[in-house]
């Protein structure tokens, strides 16, 4: 039994390899980019517009609104990063209904990569918003003693992000695999639906947590709030 699509290797040359995670990620990227390009090719600025444009507008404005609700004052600045996080994870989850498709988010490598991106993006956005000095100062608040704890918290939450997403996605695929072996027919379908639900929830949680971390880093002179969403 495969725990991760990393184990399915199509091509390898020394350190470099082309496994199922990368291939499925490329496939997802292709679908997302081409779909977006096709839909936004003929955008209407009038009140009448196509259904697909309407759908994309709802998705984009919905994400923007969510980012704003988290507490980021300029949501459009973070839309590219946070929106893509959500869309990538959600698309990966949705594609699990395609037989033979292994979600790239079921690979710990992918989730680590995403968590690393968040881990790097948070200080970058923080420095961009309040400067290097202001951002570093937030590590020694409320007292200097808190510095190691703050650093540990930073690393551990990135790790938590990665493991949480990996665990949920992998377990979903694993449960379906096991159930297919035990009770093939109706029950795996129900579990697939449940997996879709948990996958969407995870996409939401991952992007919202990233948004909360960024908001905490970009908030000047305020205490850093603890993440609200934990599973």
């Amino acid at each position, binding site marked *: 039994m495969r*725990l*991760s699509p*990393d184990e399915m290797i199509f091509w390898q040359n020394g*350190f*470099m*390899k082309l*496994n199922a*995670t*990368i291939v499925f*990620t*490329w496939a997802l*990227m292709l679908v*997302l*980019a081409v779909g*977006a*390009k096709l839909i*936004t090719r003929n*955008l*209407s*600025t*009038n*009140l009448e517009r196509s259904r697909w*444009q309407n759908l*994309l*507008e709802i998705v*984009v*404005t919905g994400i923007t609104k969510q980012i704003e609700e988290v507490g980021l004052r300029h949501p*459009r600045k973070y*839309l*590219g*990063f946070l*929106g*893509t996080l959500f*869309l*990538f994870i959600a698309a990966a989850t949705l594609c699990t209904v395609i037989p033979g498709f292994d979600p*790239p988010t079921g*690979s*710990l*490598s*992918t989730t*680590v*990569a*995403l968590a*690393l*991106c968040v881990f790097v993006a948070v200080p970058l956005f923080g420095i961009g918003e309040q400067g290097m000095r202001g951002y570093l100062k937030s590590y020694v608040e409320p007292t200097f003693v808190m510095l190691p704890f703050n650093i540990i918290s930073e690393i551990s939450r990135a790790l938590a992000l990665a493991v949480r997403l*990996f665990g949920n996605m992998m377990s979903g695929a694993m449960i379906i695999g096991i159930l297919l072996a035990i009770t093939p027919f109706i029950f795996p379908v129900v579990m697939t639906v449940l997996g879709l639900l948990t996958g969407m929830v995870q996409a939401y949680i991952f992007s919202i947590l990233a948004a909360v971390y960024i908001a905490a880093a970009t908030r000047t002179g305020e205490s850093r709030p603890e993440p609200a969403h934990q599973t």
Partner: protein
Amino acid sequence: MLIDWFTVGAQALNFLLLVWLMKRFLYKPILQSIDEREKRIAGRLADADAKKVEAVKERDAFEHKNQALDQQRAALLNQATDDAKVERQRLLGQAQKDADALSARRQETLMHEAETLNQALVRRTRQEVFAITRKVLSDLATTSLEERLGEVFTRRLRDMDGPQKERLAEALRTASGPAILRSAFDLPAQQRATIQNALNETFSAEVRVQYETAPELVSGIELTANGQKIAWSISDYLESLEKGVAGLLIKQAVPAPADAAETAPKRLANR
């Protein structure tokens, strides 16, 4: 080992590439179209607001104009009413004047008619009196009226005295031609002789007389000589009758025009 670090790096790159692709093909065009639409809607709303303001302004201007028109109309109506009143008064005055003039003319006409009737009555009365008198005299005294008239004239000649007689005598003396004796009828020879005798005796001279007939004398006799005249006719008696009848006619005619003059303006005022 669940983590393959090459895959981690590749996935991180893939993710960053996806971020760029999404920004390029999804967020940017979608947000742009939303912004443009919002801008267009805002523009339309602003345009609608401007039009509303303009409409309110135009409505105010229209109402103002309407009020001005109403006031102007009321003023014109008042002026027209005043003019009509003045014109009515003028027309009433004119009508009154015309009615007065008509009434005066009518009264005049009535007076004239009364006079004409009076004259006709007088003429008729004279003729009737003459006829009655003649009939009465001829029936009662078996003497013709002409005889009685001759007698009366003769008696008046004889009774004449004083300055009148002297003036007539003087006139008869100084007259170049004969004296003219006019009567309403042809005098019979006997009467002519009687008158001739009376004249001769009265003036103690041979008076030459030329006899003429003048029907307008109405049973009278008139002697004219060099501007002096002695006459007697039934006219003298008829004059009093004429006056009486005339007085009666005037009394009947006068109240009628007064009534007419009063009612005429009232009829005009009621129109």
